[in-house]
């Protein structure tokens, strides 16, 4: 197992390295001089030279890449082309806000959808299962911004119930957790976006396990329904749900982009959209790199967790 772990971690690092090359090549893809492209019509020779030096554009591509990568490893993401301040300072607040949003959403969504999946499987082919199965199927189809705007219409306007703010304003200097009311709608959107996927896979895997001989055996032994379901069936059915949960967690790293924009929530997503609009390449690269890294790490953790919860894999000499 140790060998497998080491291989898996090394593969993760390799993928991260390749990701960094893809992100870096975004600068190289800019037509002509990147500094010229960023400055546009405001380019005076002096500013052009300053930005060229700042981005190390007069060096070769590999040298530029090395410079950029070694900076990132030390936590320096360069200088924002839009604010002229360090990118690290620009994104650290939003990063914390987004992490909070994703964490809250995941903490609620994952147990909720696993519970829903188990319930659907236990009530298989009964009305409750039909309604929930169809409901999750419909919900799974909806893009995040459709869910977000529907929630705004229902819960943040005069039309139905004005319970929460339509725009998630976080006062400067404050963090999202200081104003919990603004987190409700973005979090609810993310929860509704990921719940269908996790609950549907949990239902499918649970239906299969409930049909197996050992579950019948446990029932014949006279164990209570609750014990059979939660002690005997769920631990075996949960592995695919863990993997899908990890995928959904990783997906949320990208899903926040649109959700944050819908609610004007000050996180990496809105920051990314602003940076793309301003063609602030260093900031876009930093955020793309962070989101890519989250994605890779979450998938790595999912694989490790899968081994931990599957005794067969835990003891296998892989």
């Amino acid at each position, binding site marked *: 197992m140790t060998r497998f772990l080491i291989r898996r971690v090394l593969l993760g690092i390799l993928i991260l390295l390749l990701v960094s090359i893809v992100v870096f090549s975004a600068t190289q893809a800019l037509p002509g001089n990147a500094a010229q492209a960023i400055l546009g019509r405001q380019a005076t020779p002096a500013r052009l030279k300053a930005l060229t030096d700042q981005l190390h554009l007069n060096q070769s591509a590999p040298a530029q890449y090395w410079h950029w990568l070694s900076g990132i490893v030390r936590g320096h993401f360069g200088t924002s082309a839009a604010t002229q301040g360090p990118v690290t300072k620009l994104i650290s607040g939003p990063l914390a806000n987004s992490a909070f949003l994703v964490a809250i959403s995941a903490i609620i969504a994952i147990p909720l959808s696993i519970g829903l999946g188990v319930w659907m499987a236990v009530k298989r082919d009964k009305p409750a299962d039909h309604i929930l199965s169809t409901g999750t199927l419909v919900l799974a189809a909806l893009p995040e911004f*459709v869910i977000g705007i529907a929630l705004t219409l229902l819960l943040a306007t005069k039309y139905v119930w004005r319970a929460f703010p339509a725009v998630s304003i976080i006062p400067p200097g404050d963090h999202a957790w200081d104003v919990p009311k603004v987190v409700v709608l973005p979090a609810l959107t993310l929860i509704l976006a990921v719940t269908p*996927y996790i609950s549907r896979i949990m239902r499918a895997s649970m239906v299969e396990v409930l049909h197996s001989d050992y579950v019948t055996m446990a029932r014949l032994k006279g164990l209570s329904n609750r014990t059979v379901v939660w002690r005997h069936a769920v631990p075996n059915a949960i592995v695919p749900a863990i993997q899908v949960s990890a995928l959904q967690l990783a997906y949320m790293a*990208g899903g926040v982009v*649109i959700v944050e924009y819908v609610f004007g929530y000050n996180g990496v997503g809105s920051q990314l959209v602003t940076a793309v609009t301003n063609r602030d390449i260093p900031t876009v690269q930093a955020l793309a790199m962070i989101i890519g890294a989250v994605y890779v790490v979450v998938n790595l953790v999912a694989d490790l967790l899968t081994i931990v919860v599957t005794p067969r894999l835990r003891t296998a000499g892989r």
Partner: protein
Amino acid sequence: MSAISPDMENPGDPTAAPELVSAPPIRSRQWLTLLKSTVGQTRGQIGLTFVIVIVGFALLGPLFAPHNPNAFIAFPNQAPGGHLLFGADALGRDVWSRFLHGGWTVLYMSLSATLIGVGIGLAVGLSAAYLGGVWDEILMRIADVFMAFPQIVLALLVVTALGPKVYLIILVVGISHAPRVARVIRGAAQQVVERDFIKAAEAVGEPRRRVIFGELLPNVTSPLMVEFGLRWTYSIGLIAGINFLGLGLQPPQSDWGLMINDNRLSLTVQPWGVLLPIIGIAMLTIGANLLTDAYARSAIGINRGED
């Protein structure tokens, strides 16, 4: 088409493998059965209806638009009434006319991206499964790298570098689907590669390209169709989302995604400018997903729990 692979052209050839001879008629009958059983389910019927209605709006809508979608004909955010069925948008243009004109871009951009993504994914997936070994490893590791980004982030990265161009957005959304499609197709094809009729085709000297697309492909059509439906559902959301962020199509284009962005600040005053495009996008994605699910259920023949 080499001279020593006459099996398809000449079914009477006694040296041909029996699967090759009998496969075509069974396959065509299977298609019909599948189609019937897809549309036979309630969800299939609802899905098909939704898709037909919205595609109808997207294709024929412009013919029925009462006003020029870009003409300023009323006060900003004017309430519905009179000649304005759904009122005016934030700039005083007719919401209903803009809605009727705005579906086409969603439809053609999402379908082109899906075709590109599924096409590349299919070619890569089949090649990886058939060639195996080093090629399989290389192709799948490349897929891993592209899957290390959420699709929207990959799209934004490209838009930053090259600007918000329509063909670019179609291309990058399509390409970001490809590794995901490739994985599924590879998985399905790996089970087929081991079967006898593939070895038979190789034995009679069929060229690789013909084995892959002539023998392997017809046996992965079910997962392929399901992938197409799924990726189309996601493409609609992604492309409408990019336009919604203002990073795709640019004003004054009438497009459902862009319309939502144009009018979202006047949501409390005049909701129709947001509501109509939201309903259009929602019906299209729900329809596509229900139809895909119905098809997948028919193809597997069992209760499908997950996409």
